[in-house]
């Protein structure tokens, strides 16, 4: 018969995080990195990120750039994830913290359900390293069985820099209108490369990163790989919504439908 001590140790040993939970945490951690120079265009640089969440940070930086600079200037930013929760009912508290009033659904008709929510903060610095902006955003993570996860990032409009004037909107591959709100869809491709293999990139890849607004190169992954992410942007009541999902599980129409539910839920 097991001693009480052994029983206790055995019980504690079985309290472990699932592999899924660990992988999610790892992905979140590698997105919390500094971004280096962006000059109004999405450029390939030393961003070490997981592809799925890349668009959120670039979008925030793009909006900050549009708000604060008439001409392209050296702009850097640092995005940090703050507190998180698995309780949807904490939404009001997070809205207050980010000082925005958002529309969010707990479960979509297509099966995607709320999993957790977190607050993030992006600090932007000008060429003299002076902080020019500090913006909080609310982020909600959804899951659906056998499909890629979805994240929705909600950022306030900064200094009247509206989405319709941004590069993201202008470079969208498709758009539509729902209830007077324009939705901008894009499919982005991400090439992740280990830091040690930075020199192995071909001229074609580097040139494409310069000219193709939907192709990004990232350094710092464990292996060289190409991933895709679908994004949908829209602006409603001075809040910019970015829906983002990896791979091709969600079609353009799927994202449009989900956006419609958010818009009609307001």
């Amino acid at each position, binding site marked *: 018969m*097991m*001693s*009480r*001590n052994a*029983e*206790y*140790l*055995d*019980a*504690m*040993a*079985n*309290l*472990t*995080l699932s592999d899924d*939970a*660990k992988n999610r*945490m*790892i992905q*979140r*951690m*590698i997105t*919390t*990195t500094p971004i280096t120079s962006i000059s109004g265009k999405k450029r390939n640089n030393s961003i*070490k990120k997981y592809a799925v969440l890349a668009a959120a940070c670039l979008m925030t930086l793009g909006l900050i750039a549009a708000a604060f600079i008439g001409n392209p200037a050296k702009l850097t930013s640092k995005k*940090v*994830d*703050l*507190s*998180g*929760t*698995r*309780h949807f*009912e*904490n939404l009001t*508290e997070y809205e207050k913290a980010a000082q925005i009033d958002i529309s969010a659904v707990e479960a979509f008709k297509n099966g995607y359900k709320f999993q*957790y929510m*977190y607050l993030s903060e992006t600090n932007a610095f000008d060429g003299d390293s002076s902080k020019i902006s500090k913006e909080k955003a609310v982020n909600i993570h959804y899951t659906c069985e056998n499909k890629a996860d979805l994240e929705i990032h909600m950022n306030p409009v900064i200094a009247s820099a509206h989405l319709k004037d941004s590069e993201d909107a202008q470079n969208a591959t498709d758009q539509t209108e729902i209830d007077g709100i324009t939705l901008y869809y894009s499919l982005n491709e991400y090439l992740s490369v280990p*830091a040690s293999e930075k020199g192995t990139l071909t001229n074609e890849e580097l040139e494409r990163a310069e000219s193709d607004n939907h192709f990004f190169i990232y350094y*710092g*992954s*464990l292996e060289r790989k190409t991933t895709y992410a679908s994004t949908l942007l829209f602006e409603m009541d001075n809040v910019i919504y970015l829906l983002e999902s990896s791979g091709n599980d969600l079609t353009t129409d799927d994202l449009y439908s989900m956006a419609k539910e958010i818009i009609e839920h307001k």
Partner: protein
Amino acid sequence: MEEKEARRLVESCGDLIYRIGVNYLKNASDAEDICQTVFLKYIASDVHFENQQHEKAWIIRTTINACKDVLKSSAFKNTTTLEELGDIKATESHETGITEEVMKLPHNYRICIYLYYYEGYSIKEIASILQKTELSVRTLLSRARKKLQLTIREDMQ
């Protein structure tokens, strides 16, 4: 943060943070939230760790502080039913249900027992981590040990 470093941190400390979170909050999903919070604090901190023991002690202290913040928050649900314990992945002896007995103790008893018996810290080390006196830690351990019917560790007799 580089993927390799993130993976090292999660693999080496994830379960530790999770267990402390469960011991404090008695809820698996809140314990997972604590894991995320602590890792993000790690990234944001400027602390330089002299060695792995130093890093581990920092993580334990940060985890406990994060748990205390949750306990204080208005959003935290204070009622934990026995059914919720099923959410915690732990095997129990059907004869003694030790996990259930552990979870009935106050959280400061639970954490002392965990650090002493599972992590193998001395009373002096636990006192330093929890910022309590050695006498307080001894008292907490003694009371918890009696309730759980645990024997004193051989190396501490």
